[in-house]
Structure formats: structure tokens, C-alpha cells
């Protein structure tokens, strides 16, 4: 019998006050009013530690790095203490058939109740043969493990939207998890990688309420992807005033002006970087002087140069315009020849 989080914390000597403090931080993380902390504590305290199976497909392990590279003990740790991570190829000690057996066992024991987390896109080319683990294609494994899951969390832009493996010309036929799994609740937590506390925030919500949080049109949790980077950017006043950095080392850049002209995709990118920030809340890319790449948006990898301003074209250049003008002159000249012939004809008839 698994113990509740309350029992587990009490056994570890964690005081209620410490738990309340943690729940206040959790409320802040989940963008809930801080006054919700006691209610979260009550719900979370009663939660059973859920079984979690983590599958990695076509990915770079950056998402796992993001999650585990925070200094212990943090919020992320605490949340990880509240789940039972029964299978994670990178983090588990077991390997080979023992690891696979552990997964089978967890699947059997918690069938229909476990949470499936996926990072990496799913290769569908050659019936999925481009990416296999223990001789089983990612495609087959996903279908099999998802069948018994209560819900699926796609962590990172690869599992959420296809990611870099899907970039043109997509040799492996990579697709997102939600393209394969259509009969289970799937939530996307995109980003390359996602912000660690956003990953844990979704888990915390699942632990507290037993459901996945409300999502937007790309299945992203609204509490973290509800607003654009631009809307929450501290450099926004400069955008509104029309003050832009023209290069990465000009006066504007030194003054911390808006990076729109240098290709910042903040205005069309929904994520929490501007408020939650990175590296233990140190900063985020724009604060470090580089525009947003838009890594939590679908197809960010195939949307033209990272340094092309948002209002610039991605296909057209001056060559196109010159060629079009030349073609126009040619057509016009042709038309003129025809009309002149007609004029001539008309005059002769008079």
C-alpha cells in the first residue's frame, strides 16, 4: 500500500509549516492566488504517490537535464519525491531486461492509473524502424504503454510538436505524441527544453487535483502558456516606445532596448520564461541580451531565420522583386505591341 504525501512528509520530519510554505510556492508556480496554499496543502496531503512511466524517443535528453539540473533540494525535488518514477531510461539504476520488467510490473499494478511522460518525437517512417529501444519501435511502445495510462504528458517540443527531428525534410517521418495517441488526455509541455518548474507544475497540478490542467489550442497548460513572452517582457516599454537595438552591440543593445529588430519571437511565443525565468530564477534569454527563438511554438524550427524580424518576409528578396518587375515590363511590352497593331489596324480602316 502506498502512503499519502502527508504520511511520507511526516515520516521524513517535514513540519506542517514547511509544507505550507512549499504549497505557497506551489500556488505561485501554478499561477494560483497565494491564498490557495492551505487548500492545496489539504488536497496534496491526501494524494497517493502516483506511478509515473517516462519514455524517451527521438530526443536529446535536454528535457531530463532541464528537470534534474536544479540544485537540491528544490520544489522540483519535492514533487519528484511525491511521485513514484517507475521507469526512466536515463535516471533508473536498472538496465536491460530488469528495467523492462520493472516497467511491465508497474504497468500491470497500476493499469489505467499511471501517468505516462514522453520526451522525444515518434518516428513513423519504415513502420517506426528509425528509432527502437530493446528491439521495439517507439511507435509500438508508445501505443502499448499509453493504452494503460490515465493521461499522457508530452514533455518538450519534440514530443509536443515533432521538434527538431521533424524539421524539413523530416527523414524519419517524426510526429508528435498527440498525432498517435488520440483516445487519452494528452497535455503538451513544449520548450527546448521546457522550464523545469513548468514540468513539475503540471505534475503538481495532477497530484493536487488528480486531473490535467486546462489547456490552450496547442494542448498547452494555460497557467504557463497563457501569455506571450512579449506581454510579460520587462523590455516591453521600449517596444511600445519604438526603441530598438539594431545590432547585438550597439547603444540600444547596451541600454537594454527591445530586441524585435534582431528577430525576437517573443510576440508570438507563449511561455513563462519572462516571469519564472531560468537557472533558479536568474534570468531568461531576453534578459541576457538575445531575442526569443520561440522554442515552445509548433514548427519554430522551420519558420525562417531566428534573426529575421517578425515583420520581415521569409521567402522574398530583392531578386524576386526585380524579376517580377522585369516580367511585368515584358508582359507590358507584349501588350503594347498587340495594342499598337490593333491601333494601326483601326486607323487603316478609317
Amino acid at each position, binding site marked *: 500500500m502506498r502512503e499519502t504525501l502527508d504520511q511520507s512528509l511526516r515520516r521524513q520530519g517535514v513540519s506542517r509549516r514547511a509544507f505550507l510554505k512549499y504549497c*505557497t510556492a506551489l500556488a*505561485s508556480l501554478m499561477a494560483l492566488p497565494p491564498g490557495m496554499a492551505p487548500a492545496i496543502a489539504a488536497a496534496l496531503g491526501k494524494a497517493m504517490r502516483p506511478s509515473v512511466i517516462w519514455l524517451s524517443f527521438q530526443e536529446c535528453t535536454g528535457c531530463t537535464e532541464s528537470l534534474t539540473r536544479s540544485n537540491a*533540494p528544490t520544489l522540483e525535488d519535492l514533487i519528484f519525491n511525491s511521485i513514484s518514477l517507475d521507469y526512466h531510461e536515463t535516471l533508473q539504476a536498472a538496465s536491460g531486461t530488469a528495467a523492462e520488467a520493472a516497467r511491465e510490473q508497474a504497468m500491470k499494478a497500476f493499469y489505467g492509473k499511471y501517468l505516462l511522460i514522453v520526451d522525444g518525437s515518434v518516428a513513423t517512417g519504415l513502420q517506426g524502424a528509425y528509432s527502437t529501444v530493446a528491439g521495439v519501435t517507439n511507435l509500438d511502445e508508445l501505443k502499448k504503454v499509453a493504452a494503460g495510462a490515465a493521461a499522457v504528458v508530452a514533455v518538450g517540443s519534440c514530443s509536443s510538436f515533432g521538434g527538431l527531428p521533424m524539421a524539413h525534410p523530416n527523414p524519419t517521418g517524426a510526429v508528435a505524441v498527440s498525432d498517435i495517441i488520440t483516445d487519452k488526455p494528452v497535455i503538451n509541455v513544449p520548450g527546448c527544453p521546457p522550464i523545469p518548474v513548468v514540468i513539475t507544475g503540471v505534475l503538481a497540478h495532477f497530484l493536487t487535483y488528480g486531473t490535467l490542467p486546462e489547456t490552450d489550442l496547442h494542448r498547452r497548460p494555460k497557467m504557463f502558456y497563457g501569455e506571450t513572452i512579449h506581454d510579460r517582457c520587462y523590455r516591453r516599454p521600449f517596444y511600445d516606445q519604438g526603441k530598438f537595438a539594431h545590432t547585438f552591440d550597439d547603444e540600444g543593445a547596451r541600454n*537594454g532596448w527591445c530586441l524585435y529588430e534582431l528577430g525576437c519571437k517573443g510576440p508570438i511565443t507563449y511561455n513563462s520564461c*519572462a516571469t519564472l525565468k531560468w537557472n533558479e530564477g536568474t534570468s531568461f534569454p531576453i*534578459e541576457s541580451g538575445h531575442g526569443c527563438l520561440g522554442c515552445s511554438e509548433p514548427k519554430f524550427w522551420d519558420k525562417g531565420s531566428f534573426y529575421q524580424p517578425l515583420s520581415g518576409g521569409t521567402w522574398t528578396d530583392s531578386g524576386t522583386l526585380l524579376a517580377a518587375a522585369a516580367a511585368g515590363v515584358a508582359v507590358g511590352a507584349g501588350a503594347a505591341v498587340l495594342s499598337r497593331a490593333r491601333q494601326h489596324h483601326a486607323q487603316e480602316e478609317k
Partner: protein
Amino acid sequence: MSRLDEIPVRIMPAESAAGQGQALLHELAHMLDVLLREGRSGMIDLRALPLAAADFARLRAVLGEGEVHARIDAMGEASIVETGIPGIWWHTYRSHDGDIITEMLETTWCPDILNSQPEDVTSGLQRLREQLTGDAAPSIPAKEEQHA
């Protein structure tokens, strides 16, 4: 340029304050009013707002520090300070590493987290009783209970 600190980068100039600090102060005045008239407490999560350093500085300068400074040691330190405006409390919660995990302003008579929590009192009492039964005077707790 041979050294990083010779590159004259000003990341966040003071003028970038978007006036958020001022708006927050108005909000706080309203919340204090509600506390006085209706007795309702309120909280503002400072980490959920895109505050520039200048906004923070302005908040700190206007609110100042008051008479009560509390420190909690519970999974990292937490400091709860009554600001120079009584009834406004500044919460700063840190992790074990000292990183700030939450920063809030609360308008209340006394922050709840400073109160002893019933669950902790219960287990504390239990520990106390175990201590007393473990000591040479096993009859004392029984007597106390009779008084109660």
C-alpha cells in the same frame, strides 16, 4: 576589451521601470482599506509580476521596514517582515540553497504561517508526552489531563 566587466553593458536601466511599482502601491492601499473595514486579508504574488529592478527598489523604499522581523527555518529559510506600513507584511521564502522561491506581500493582522499549526502542535504534544513518560515521572501527564 580584455575583461568581461570592461564591456559597458547595462542590462536593466533604472528608466525601464514600467510604473508597476506605483500600481502595486495603489493596490496595497486598497487592500489595507479592505482589511480595516471588512477584516479580509489579501496577498500579492510578486514573482508573478514582470517587475523591473527599479520597481522593486521603489516598493522597498516606500514600504520600508517596521517593527517585526520573523525568521522561519523550515526546508530553507523564510523571512516575514512587517513593513513600515503596519498591516503590510513582506514574505520571502527561500530554498535550502538560499534561492528565493516565493516573494509575496500580504495585508493581514498577523500572517498565518507564523501561527503554530495544529498538526505540528499535535505531534509536538505527542513527542512531549513520550519525553515525559520516558523520564522518571510517568504520573505527570495523567495528572495534567485530569486538570484539563
